[in-house]
C-alpha cells in the first residue's frame, strides 16, 4: 500500500511502549498492532486525533505517502 504508518518510529522517538499508548488512547493493543504493522485498512479521524494528542505530533508524522 502507498500509505505507510510510522507509528513505531514515533513510539521510539517518544520512548513510549505500545501498551502505554493503547491505555492512553483507549484502543486495544491488538488493534494498535494492526495499525503499527500496516495491516489496517482505514483509520478513524477520532483515533488519529487521540494518537496525535498523546504522542504530541501531527498526522503527517504518523502517516507517510510512498509512490508505488
Amino acid at each position, binding site marked *: 500500500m502507498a500509505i505507510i504508518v510510522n507509528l513505531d518510529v514515533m513510539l521510539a522517538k517518544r520512548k513510549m511502549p505500545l501498551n502505554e499508548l493503547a491505555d492512553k488512547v483507549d484502543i486495544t493493543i491488538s488493534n494498535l498492532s494492526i*495499525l503499527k504493522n500496516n*495491516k*489496517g*485498512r482505514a*483509520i*478513524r479521524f477520532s*483515533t488519529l486525533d487521540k494518537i496525535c494528542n498523546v504522542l504530541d505530533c501531527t498526522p503527517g508524522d504518523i502517516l507517510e505517502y510512498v509512490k508505488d
Partner: protein
Amino acid sequence: MKITGNKSMSSFIKIILQILFVLGIISLFAIPIYLYMITTDSGIVLSLLGICTFSVIVSFFIIYFTAIPGIALIYQFIKLFDALKKNNPFVIENAIYLNRSSITGGIISLSYFIVAIILLCNSILLYGLCTLLMGIIFLVFTIGTYILSKIFKQAAEYKEENELTI
C-alpha cells in the same frame, strides 16, 4: 428460539441435514442393489423393458445420477449451517459454500430440464410437466443461492474492512 448458536434453529436444521445426507448416500447405493435383486429374482427386467421405452430408462438414469449433486448440495448446506451454529455467518467460506450450492443446483436443474424434454417429446405429459416444474424450482433455487453467495461475499468484505478500521 435462537437462530444462530448452540441449541438454535441452525443446529436443529444441521442435524436434519446430516440425517438426510446419510440417508441420501445409503439410498444412492441401495437403489441399484434393490433393483438388481428384484429384477434377477422374478424376471421383472423383461416386463420392465416391455413397458419402459428407451427414453424412459435414460430419464430414470439421469434422475438417479442427480442424487450425486443433490448429496453434494446437502453437504454444502451442512457446512453453511455449521458456520451459523458457530455464530459466524458473514465469512467468505459461507459465500463459497453458497456458490457451490448454486452450481450443484444448476446441474440438477439442467438434468431435470433434459428429462422433461425427453418425456414431453415422448408424449408422457404428466411426468414431463412434473419434471419441468422441478427443473424450474431448482433453477429458481440456483439463481437465489447465487445472489445470496454474492451478498454474503460483499457482507464478508464489509465486515473485514470494518474490523480492520482502527
